[in-house]
């Protein structure tokens, strides 16, 4: 234990002499948390619309003014034909075509129904999906308005419609920032966990000092603890800064217990540092460690549920998320921050991450040899 104090003293001195590490622990989280949530925006605005109005009636005019005033669409052009409109899509000027056929108004009045065509450029899937859905929504709304108008005529009986109203629990305004910020905080901790410790150890391999340590009587576990503890503390510092930023900038105050977030983060960082350590035992140079680290981090992130919902993943991918500490933490963060979940709710997550921490760290210790 006495040896450990010398190791820790050395690590902290080196960290405080290295501005790059201090920056990545202190400044990076602030910048990321301030910039990223604004850019990584789930809402789709600015859908470019090409309108083909073959009817030129008062109803079609009404519809066009309704859709352009919705705020989601920007009318780029009126095309004389569907084919012309397709040209705008091909040249990326438009994302969406709405075609109103000949006799739209006449059909509507006479037959009580009319058709309309929506064509979507699906190159950007998210935009196409949401753009199409918005357009469909607006059309439905338009439909209802017409019904309301006509209801006044007794000759037409109201068609019974079922209207769906939904209320969003835990994030009532569907504020994507409240959803993203806790997730981004987790990615920051992930980066610190995976990279800082592994690069640190591999650096010692590169400059040769690790050999001097291997030839000393210091035990494997003391050495590894000496490497883990400083970065574990730095991770918790980053978390604290992150929680402060999300409170000051986004007014996000966790509904649940902050102590619970810290408890989970402590175990989570242990697991991630285990991954970093493991990488460092395999890598000989910092370049190798960086590449492997990036690969692992990409997998953790993309299969972590930050950007896409885990529930909609195929089964094999769901299995990967079971050994992904990031997936657990993102879920737990959202549960605690948005929903105020308590210990009983996250118990299973905590135990899983603890298990992963044990596995990663034992693997790393087994793979670290003082003698080759």
């Amino acid at each position: 234990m006495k040896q450990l104090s010398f190791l820790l003293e050395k690590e902290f001195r080196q960290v405080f002499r290295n501005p790059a590490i201090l920056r990545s622990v202190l400044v990076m989280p602030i910048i990321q948390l301030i910039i990223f949530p604004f850019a990584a925006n789930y809402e789709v605005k600015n859908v470019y619309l090409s309108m083909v109005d073959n009817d030129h009636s008062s109803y079609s005019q009404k519809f066009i003014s309704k859709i352009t005033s919705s705020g989601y669409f920007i009318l780029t052009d009126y095309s004389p034909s569907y084919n012309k409109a397709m040209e705008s899509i091909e040249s990326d000027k438009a994302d969406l075509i709405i075609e109103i056929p000949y006799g739209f108004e006449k059909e509507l009045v006479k037959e009580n129904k009319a058709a309309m065509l929506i064509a979507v450029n699906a190159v950007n899937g998210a935009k196409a999906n949401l753009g199409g859905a918005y357009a469909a929504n607006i059309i439905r709304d338009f439909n209802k308005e017409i019904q309301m108008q006509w209801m006044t005529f007794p000759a037409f009986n109201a068609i019974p419609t079922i209207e769906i109203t939904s209320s969003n629990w835990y994030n009532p305004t569907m504020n994507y920032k409240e959803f993203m910020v806790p997730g981004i905080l987790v990615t920051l901790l992930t980066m610190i966990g995976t990279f800082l410790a592994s690069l640190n150890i591999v650096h010692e391999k590169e400059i040769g000092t690790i050999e001097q340590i291997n030839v000393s009587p210091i035990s494997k576990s003391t050495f590894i603890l000496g490497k883990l503890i400083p970065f574990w503390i730095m991770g918790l510092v980053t978390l604290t800064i992150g929680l402060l930023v999300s409170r000051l900038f986004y007014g996000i105050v966790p509904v649940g217990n902050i102590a619970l977030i810290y408890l989970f983060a402590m175990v989570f960082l242990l697991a991630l540092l285990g991954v970093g350590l493991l990488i460092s035992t395999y890598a000989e140079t910092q370049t190798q460690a960086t590449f492997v680290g990036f690969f692992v981090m990409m997998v953790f992130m993309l299969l972590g549920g930050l950007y896409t919902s885990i529930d909609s993943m195929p089964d094999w991918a769901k299995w990967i998320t079971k050994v992904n500490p990031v997936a657990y933490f993102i879920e737990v963060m959202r549960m605690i921050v948005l929903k105020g979940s308590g210990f009983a709710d996250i118990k299973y997550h905590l135990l899983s991450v603890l298990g992963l921490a044990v596995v990663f760290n034992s693997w790393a210790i087994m793979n670290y040899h003082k003698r080759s």
Partner: protein
Amino acid sequence: MTETVITADKLTKKFGDFIATNEISFEVKKGEIFGFLGANGAGKTTAMRMFCGLLMPSSGAASVAGFDVYKQTEQIKKSIGYMSQRFSLYEDLTVKENIRFYAGIYGMSRSAIKEKSVLLLNQLNLSGEVNTLVKSLPLGWKQKLAFSVAIFHEPKIVFLDEPTGGVDPITRREFWNLIYQAAERGITIFVTTHYMDEAEYCNRVSIMVDGKIEALDTPRNLKKTYAAKSMDEVFLQLVRGAKRGE
């Protein structure tokens, strides 16, 4: 009869088909300055790393400070100091911090470290540089410091792998003075070098060629055996036949 601190008996290390160290056998006595010579690639560093417990031997037997190199490496590590070919102090730590760290991981107490480092820094004329980062010291000073750090915990044996590479003659002379002082205190010195004038300073010298020890004796006897005027000539005669290139 003085105590034997290193014994090697047909110690061998193979990397695949390549035999880096081929059945080397010798003994080193306590307090001796043992020169371990050989061309680049002769297998010196490999042998040294096996003695230090950094590398697992393929076959043969060896003991260091009475401990077996296969099973008792952790005990060996408590009894030795090691200065590797690559400079191994932390450049981003000060002189004092380096001494404290290395002494600390060998289990010395903070008070003992404090006391002893004052003496050491005086002896090395480094008292004014206690708080200087090691990276800003000249190479010669760094090497002397690295050696002093390697023997700071008073090991029985110190292994030096080309400790004076790239250092000027005056500093090399100073370095060897430090080695003599350590040997007088009873620390056994196991040193590899490329400088034949340094070989003359050793009590006994072994010369490795292609993984084997071809000659082992005092410098004086070696010169007599090979009818050479200097160690340089002895070395050239032996190493000329080497197959492994630089």
